[in-house]
């Protein structure tokens, strides 16, 4: 299967790779997927006092589409409020990256990762 240019771009120049200290009270961490399934995504958000996500980082074990999906959402959620970030749908991710049907689960994981990171952050407040 040939990859779409946007997937290749995110894969070759992933944005926001890295980690925050997950103990920080203004950091929310989402970890989704399973090694046995071939995808694990870790997405972290740093939330400002105004409730806006001012930074995001990811690490992903998975195929090119999984890496691109996580890289893309770190860009999308920066500058968004938590509610706005929660509105991101996997279908938008899949459409932006032109994911083929067999790769749709990568976009689902990315959406789940956002939700989990936000819920982790909210629990800490």
């Amino acid at each position, binding site marked *: 299967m040939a990859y779409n240019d946007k997937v290749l771009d995110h894969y070759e120049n992933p944005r926001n790779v890295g980690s925050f200290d997950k103990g920080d009270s203004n950091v929310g961490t989402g970890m989704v997927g399973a*090694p046995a399934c071939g995808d694990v995504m870790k997405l972290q958000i740093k939330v400002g006092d105004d409730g806006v996500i001012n930074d995001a980082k990811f690490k992903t074990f998975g195929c090119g589409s999984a890496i691109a999906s996580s890289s893309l959402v770190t860009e999308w959620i920066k500058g968004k409020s938590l509610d706005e970030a929660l509105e991101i749908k996997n279908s938008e991710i899949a459409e932006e990256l032109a994911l083929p049907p067999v790769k749709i689960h990568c976009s689902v994981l990315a959406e789940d990762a956002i939700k989990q990171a936000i819920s982790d952050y909210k629990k800490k407040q």
Partner: protein
Amino acid sequence: MKLPIYMDNQATTPVDPRVLDIMLPWFTEKFGNPASSSHSFGWEADTAVKKARQQVADLIGADAKEIVFTSGATESNNIAIQGIARFHQERGNHIITLVSEHKAVLDTCRHLESEGFDVTYLPVQSNGLVDMQQLADAITDKTVLISIMAANNEIGVIQPLAEIGALCRERKIYFHTDAAQAVGKLPIDVNAMKIDLLSISGHKFYGPKGVGALYVRRRPRVRLKAIMFGGGHERGIRSGTLPTPLLVGLGAAAELAGQEMDSDNKRIFALRERMRLGIMEQLTHLELNGDLEQRLAGNLNISFSYVEGESLMMAIKDVAVSSGSACTSASLEPSYVLRSLGVNEEMAHTSIRFGLGRFSTEEEVDFVIKTIVKAVNNLREMSPLWEMAQEGINIDEIEWEAH
């Protein structure tokens, strides 16, 4: 050095240019149908087919009359297994094979199960080899066929053919071996190894795609039911117009393989070891899949922990290899061959198969080592699993949510 580098010779091999040169006239000026008995176009083609048959026979120590041409190893496997099972149904309905066989064998066996045959799918040991005691114990008085591959397509391990052959002969059971990966690469003698049926694929040893052969022993005679009918070609075992150019190519590839097997193997083995040691020296957390000793010279299969196979293939896109990860195939399960060795799913997802061949060079190997080491290091930096491993977290103890 030309990019991309082809290092997937277990998937298919390029046609040797010497083979192609021999084939080409048979498409155009010498185009006759070998079954046309009434004119010289047909006779000329028929003579070429005879020569090819002899060349293939010579490579495996068989008689030319024992070679049945087919469209490839998948068809050969189908004919051998269905053909024996159906012909000898009265005598017994039990077949023994391995869980790590090629799909052409497994799917055929599954199909026969749906028709009422009994199939035992023997496990393999963690090195990929059959346990001879287990095999002997699995035999019942209903067993008519044992089908065990010569060399595995993913991990390259070589099964003890002579031992299996001796066991089968002693217990009066037909022995079929899918030798698609082994023919032309390992010395095979159907008599010394007591093989009754053997499947050959042209495109796995520098011959053309779309052609293969099935060796069917004549003494003692092996009888089977055909699956392709019409015209009575190939002793009635396989009908259809014989594709002369492809057969000429298969024959030429067989002759070359016979001549160059020793020197090829020596060179390819040295390259493979250079690659294995080069990678192992520079990276940690690696697992070699399959036995190192009983192995095709050109095969290397390594799991790169914490790095998913498909993303690794993408990172080394100038190098053509394959991965045991589910994502590279239509199925969603990671390689069943690796799973059969007891490799867990996670490690199966991180596996890469390197298939070196006749045209691989030292320069290419060095480039691949450099490329793969860099890519693995980069991807591990990006991997949450690697991060956790560095922090001393055992990822096997985490409860992951499956999806």
